[in-house]
């Protein structure tokens, strides 16, 4: 076990490796993570004064709606289609899942407009902007597979209309919108996982770089 033998067996405070500088991958990862995102940045207890505006609320509202969508989707997955199509409680949770998605996109689009007009990629925030764009694009695909999973005439119509379009892109050979099982599994596992990872990285980047400030007023010192 080289990682243990690399560290000299000396009491703390004496010459040699200190416990926090031992050459282990876990230690290196921890030191890098703490240097990149120190606790006061990861969980701040205050924000700049310019954040006190309603337009800065929509990112958090989007996260809240995303939580509702994930929770209601988990309940639907546990109980199954016989439950969500027939029982009153199932129909209610199904509707919560739909309207949670509607609000998710409603808030996300307003968040996008706000950040676009603030040019939120300023100040080394390009990666924050790009992860947000990717989260938005993959969310559209996730919602699309959800509409294909409704098991009604609407989903049949969407699937048959989309088939030609997806075939035209060349992706139809491996991504078949008429394959209900494939669409359902992409909807409940693969795509939500990617969206969650993108949203997670997006939020961590916001913590690291901070919330973008508004443009300075005309004539003000830049």
């Amino acid at each position, binding site marked *: 076990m080289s990682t243990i033998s690399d560290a000299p067996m000396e009491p703390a405070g004496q010459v040699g490796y200190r416990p926090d500088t031992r050459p282990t991958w876990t230690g290196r990862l921890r030191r890098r993570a703490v240097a990149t995102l120190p606790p006061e940045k990861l969980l701040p207890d*205050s924000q*700049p*004064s*310019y*954040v006190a505006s*309603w*337009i800065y609320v929509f990112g958090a509202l989007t996260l809240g709606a995303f939580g509702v969508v994930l929770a209601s989707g988990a309940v639907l997955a546990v109980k199954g289609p016989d439950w969500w199509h027939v029982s009153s409680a199932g129909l209610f949770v199904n509707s919560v899942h739909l309207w949670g998605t509607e609000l998710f996109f409603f808030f996300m689009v*307003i968040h996008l*407009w706000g950040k676009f007009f603030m040019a939120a990629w300023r100040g080394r925030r390009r990666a924050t902007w790009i992860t947000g764009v990717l989260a938005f694009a993959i969310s559209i695909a996730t919602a699309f597979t959800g509409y294909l999973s409704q098991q009604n005439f609407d989903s049949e119509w969407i699937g048959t209309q989309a088939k030609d379009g997806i075939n035209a892109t060349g992706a139809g050979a491996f991504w078949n919108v008429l394959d209900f099982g494939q669409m359902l599994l992409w909807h409940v596992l693969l795509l939500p996982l990617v969206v969650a990872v993108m949203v997670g990285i997006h939020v961590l980047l916001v913590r690291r770089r901070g919330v973008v400030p508004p443009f300075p007023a005309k004539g003000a010192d830049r």
Partner: protein
Amino acid sequence: MPTIMSAPAVTAVLVDLSRPGRYVHWGFIQISVANLVVIGLMLLVFILAIAIPFPHGGKK
């Protein structure tokens, strides 16, 4: 005894969900009235979010 309308009944009075959706045609652009209403609401909320002052101003 007063009759209380259920939420689906109220919705049915406002919007006839049994009919095909209404669409707006403008040249090659075609959009459903439902989607147009949602876009209008988003624009309204966006403008209100900029115009309405936030209740608790930060100090930092």
